[in-house]
């Protein structure tokens, strides 16, 4: 039985990753799960320099979901390499680095730095964080800027490039194509959706940043639709995410057209989710006589 899939030149032993920002830098969960069982580890978004992040409260629980406004707190490229890379580079599974910047040049520079580091599995360009004023989101909602930022990174590295698209657009197809045309090897769909909650007792927004990004099971139906549409628009593989809690959820993404999936928010409440999803996908394949996980990919459209 084959579970392995390919993202650009990167081969993954199975199609189940963890989502950026929900798995720290890998080491944190190593006491609770065997990281080497994962398809890949994807780390929290990193820009060139350190980032302090947003004021608290930074997350609030909502119906079947979570709103977060962390503000991409992080150690910057150097801090990451010093503090977290020594652990990650020893893993048997690849590390995918989620990167961002406030200018096209910064994205390209961060890509160059990780290209030079050696041993990185792939880069995921976060052009869709809703929680940072000066960066992220505007690249994800402007087709032209999106093409520019992907092209600039493409010129800076030969590592596989994954573009993480924003869900906050009228139609995702043009963005998917712009990323593909600019040389992206794959797409990640979706990032969190802009959202807000108010605490009626205090009469204040529930988050320090006022607005944040919605994630968890509540967004799965939106994510499935976006993956379905993007898969029809491009030939490059898609990493599907948004609300995955079970193998059933993951298979739904694969059938919609995703080549791989990532588990995000669910890890917070059930750290073993990703490994359970891998086991569940394997079981489903066994009981349905499916030899290769790639048979599932896009199989709903194929069946039509």
């Amino acid at each position: 039985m084959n579970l392995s899939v390919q993202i650009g030149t990167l081969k993954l032993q199975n199609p189940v990753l963890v989502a950026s920002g929900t798995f720290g830098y890998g080491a944190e969960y190593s006491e609770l799960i065997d990281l080497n069982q994962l398809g890949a580890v994807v780390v929290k978004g990193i820009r060139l320099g350190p980032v302090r992040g947003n004021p608290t409260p930074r997350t609030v629980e909502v119906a079947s979901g979570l709103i977060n406004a962390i503000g991409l707190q992080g150690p910057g490229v150097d801090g990451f390499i010093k503090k977290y890379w020594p652990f990650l580079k020893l893993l048997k599974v690849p590390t995918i680095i989620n990167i961002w910047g406030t200018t096209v040049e910064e994205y390209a520079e961060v890509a160059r730095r990780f290209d030079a580091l050696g041993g990185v599995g792939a880069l995921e360009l976060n052009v869709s964080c809703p929680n940072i004023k000066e960066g992220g989101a505007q690249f994800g909602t402007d087709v032209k800027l999106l093409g520019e930022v992907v092209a600039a990174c493409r010129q800076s590295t030969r590592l596989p490039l994954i573009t993480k698209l924003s869900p906050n657009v009228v139609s995702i197809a043009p963005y998917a194509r712009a990323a593909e045309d600019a040389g992206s090897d794959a797409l990640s769909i979706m990032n969190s959706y802009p959202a807000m909650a108010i605490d009626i007792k205090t009469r204040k927004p529930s988050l320090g940043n006022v607005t944040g990004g919605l994630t968890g099971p509540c967004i799965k139906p939106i994510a499935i639709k976006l993956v379905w549409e993007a898969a029809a628009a491009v030939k490059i593989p898609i990493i599907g995410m948004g609300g995955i809690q079970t193998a059933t959820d993951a298979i739904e993404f694969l059938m919609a057209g995703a080549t791989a999936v990532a588990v995000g928010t669910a890890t917070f409440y059930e750290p073993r989710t990703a490994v359970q999803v891998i086991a569940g996908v394997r079981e489903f394949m066994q009981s349905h006589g499916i030899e290769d996980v790639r048979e599932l990919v896009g199989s709903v459209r194929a069946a039509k």
Partner: protein
Amino acid sequence: MLEQTVQIVSNEPDPTDLYFRLVMSAPRIAPLVQPGQFVHLRIQSIKDALLRRPFSIFQVSGDTVSILYKNVGKGTDALSRMRPAQDLSLIGPLGHGFTVPPPGGESPLLVAGGYGMAALYLLAQRSPQKGIVFVGGRRRVDILCQDEFQSLGWEVRATTEDGSHGGKGLVTQPLLAELRSGTAGRKLFACGPTPMLRAVGRIAEEFNLPAELSMDEHMCCGVGVCLTCVIPVKTGADWEYQRTCTEGPVFDSTRIAWDANS
């Protein structure tokens, strides 16, 4: 840190049905617990809500770990309805707890507000020096485990805001009175609502005493990956956000940059 499915041994309310003592059988976790650490509980029966809830570890006895919780919302309400023999998923022990005073070291003064008392019990139990515990609450029912602390040989000075038990006023009043009578060799350990912690921090500064504060921040993952639970912590002349679930919940009071966030 382990994730374990634990069985409820008992889940007893106080006479007002506001505070509950939940005892769980957690044989692999119990031996690892340090004072001031917490557990992260998944309560499957909360409708529509997903996240775990953090609770300080109150007592450890043989194979069991217990918490003392207040019914304040949907998670604690669902928890309060759970019965012996039912299961919970628990991650723990988590966080960086209190420094147990070394034998012959400083004499500990504990300061607790509401369920903060729960977080201090193990420290009192394991401290070679006995000291005084100052406990405060709104009403009599909020003074939670006075007897248990007394059984350990600690002196308890209680205050309530409505005067229904102990002195009337805030917990910091008897603390100040005590410190005015002498500070040599004292160390403060506190757990409670943020305004109380801040007041204790100021008192520590004023009297030039060491103080460890267990900070109360909203949590999400509880293990350091999501960066929800941060507080501003001094780094030289500057400050950065550090996680209360991993670097804390207990911080040295001088390290907290109280005004950074405003």
